[in-house]
């Protein structure tokens, strides 16, 4: 919920133009900017230290008090991260996990959201109430049973039909993706969006002889692009940053994601802060870039979808 607000509000904020600045005295404005700059700097400080340390040579890291601006640019730290024995594997795992989770969320949440928004069927109210109810179930407090369920999926990983005697989907991509493959939030988001699309599009297509799936695929899904963008960005972000499910549902080195890799690197016996920070920088950048790109995209989407077609 919280993050959706983050995606949709900026657009609205921009539309509203009330410019008080003309009335605010110059002195006050300078103080205001000063405070904001200070707050922005304080917020950025951990990032700046992260990047700064990631560029320091080994010796400089242990200097006290630490220097904010590195003496030289030690790009070798980044190469060290890239040449870590598992980092390639971890990148692949993270990408498979994040993309798999994103795609499955886009597919399953939009299908379910469409059905809840636009189709008539018995038990609709109950299903919707269930989805809203599940919004409140704290996912993190379910680690134990989810572990067991993933382990006991029948016929997977050497399991018999009762789900015994094997490892199920533990240590597999499928197992990691499963708990995040569809979320009540995603379904809710898509349903809300589909509800707002004028019904005439759909009726017109029905008159032209289109079937439910065609209407969904050819008409509503393209119209839902802004909502899909929001859902996609959020799903990708939360899967890329996910720590608990990969931690619990995998225990082999081969399945570790970048987040786990970073934690292992930092807690390892010969951790070097500059290399750890280089890896933290490398992990953080993609999400920030995706956001900077998506922020515009999502805002555009919100603006366009408000215009009558």
């Amino acid at each position, binding site marked *: 919920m919280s993050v959706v607000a983050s995606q949709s509000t900026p657009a609205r904020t921009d539309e509203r133009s009330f410019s008080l600045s003309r009335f605010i005295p110059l002195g006050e404005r300078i103080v205001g900017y000063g405070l904001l700059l200070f707050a922005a700097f304080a917020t950025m400080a951990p990032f700046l230290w992260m990047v700064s340390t990631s560029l320091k040579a080994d010796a400089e890291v242990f200097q006290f008090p630490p220097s904010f601006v590195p003496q030289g640019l030690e790009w070798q730290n980044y190469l060290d991260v890239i040449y870590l024995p598992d980092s390639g594997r971890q990148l692949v795992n993270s990408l498979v996990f994040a993309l798999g989770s994103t795609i499955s969320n886009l597919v399953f949440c939009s299908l379910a959201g469409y059905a809840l928004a636009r189709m008539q069927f018995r038990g609709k109210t109950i299903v919707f109430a269930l989805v809203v109810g599940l919004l409140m179930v704290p996912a993190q407090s379910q680690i134990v049973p989810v572990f067991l369920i993933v382990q006991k999926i029948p016929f997977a990983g050497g399991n018999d039909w009762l789900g015994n005697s094997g490892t199920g989907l533990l240590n597999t991509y499928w197992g990691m993706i499963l708990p995040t493959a569809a979320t009540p939030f995603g379904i809710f988001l898509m349903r809300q969006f589909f509800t707002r699309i004028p019904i*005439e599009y759909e009726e*017109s297509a*029905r008159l*032209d*002889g289109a079937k439910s799936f065609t209407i969904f695929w050819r*008409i509503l899904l393209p*119209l839902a692009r802004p909502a899909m963008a929001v859902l996609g960005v959020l799903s990708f972000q939360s899967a890329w940053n996910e720590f608990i499910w990969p931690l619990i549902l995998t225990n082999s080195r081969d399945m570790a994601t970048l987040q786990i890799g970073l934690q292992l690197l930092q807690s390892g016996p010969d951790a070097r802060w500059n290399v750890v920070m280089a890896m933290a920088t490398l992990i953080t950048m993609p999400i920030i870039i995706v956001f900077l790109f998506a922020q515009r995209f999502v805002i555009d989407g919100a603006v366009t979808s408000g215009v009558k077609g």
Partner: protein
Amino acid sequence: MAELELSGVSKTYGAFNALKDVSLEIGDGEFAVFVGPSGCGKSTLLRLIAGLDPVSEGQIAIGGKDVTSSQAGQRPIAMVFQNYALYPHMSVYDNIAFPLQMERRSKDEIRAEVARAAQIVQLSTRLQDKPSKLSGGQRQRVAIARAIVRKPGIFLMDEPLSNLDAALRMEMRSELTQLHRRLGSTMVYVTHDQLEAMTMADRIVVLNGGRVEQVGPPMELYHNPANLFVAGFIGSPPMNFLAGTVRSVDGATVSVDALRIGVVTLPFSGEHLYAGDSVTLGVRPEALELGAGRQVQFSVVPEAVERLGLHTIVHAGEEGRPFTALFNGDPKLRAGEAINVSVDRSSVQVFDADGISRSRRTEV
């Protein structure tokens, strides 16, 4: 081959009766217009014909075939929506091609059909544009082209011109009429604008409160409205109503004592009317003439005079009851100065206490 027949059609939403026992026949090639005030069930009736909603009771047949239980896409109809419902993410070409793609027609065939339809609506040059780039009238034409390619037995249109400005609406009105003549297919057209109904329709269906009030050609409804509702709804400015009481009935004439005009003797047989009955007299504003040239004469005091050049409208309401007169040209009149007006006896209509017309000449 696509006449439309509704028999005893009703529609309820929960406890609310949106349509009550509607029976209608619309002939092949006819241009039928549903007209009525907002909320009277026009759109609902159209949606039932389209198959977008199921009927609660009754049957619908198209081209002699019962389609009551067939799905929306399976009926030989096409619909133009009030807001056009053009798919905003598809080009004009794709919008028009969509119904054909649903029928799984070949690519070449689709291209030819789209080109033909685009040419009919004069949009051949805009096929690659997105609907958002088009003007209101152009969007309207795309919606029509999308309906044309289906080659439907019946075209359904729900207030298709209501989003356009006045000038464009007039232009589109005549274009639609020409289109109807050219395609020769049955059209069912919904509007709440009686002017649109009068100018376009072969036959008008007046709906009110979910019921059919009267069905007939525009001039029939104009000259011989079946009841007070139709009389007041058709014609602009609306008909003047004057409360009155029946004095006597003699088989060939009816004598009525009415507000403003006093006692008049009207040339109607007066069936179902008896001395002492309360009635309402109806006089069209345009039937009134300045001066004493006609049989029924009385005087009114204009409170406002609207000069439109071609004619002049005089408002002379009294005690909260509106009264208007419409005169040709630009006579010298002034608000507050009494004028004499007159009207033919045969132009005065009589409605009984239930609002049913008693002066109506039923064709033999």
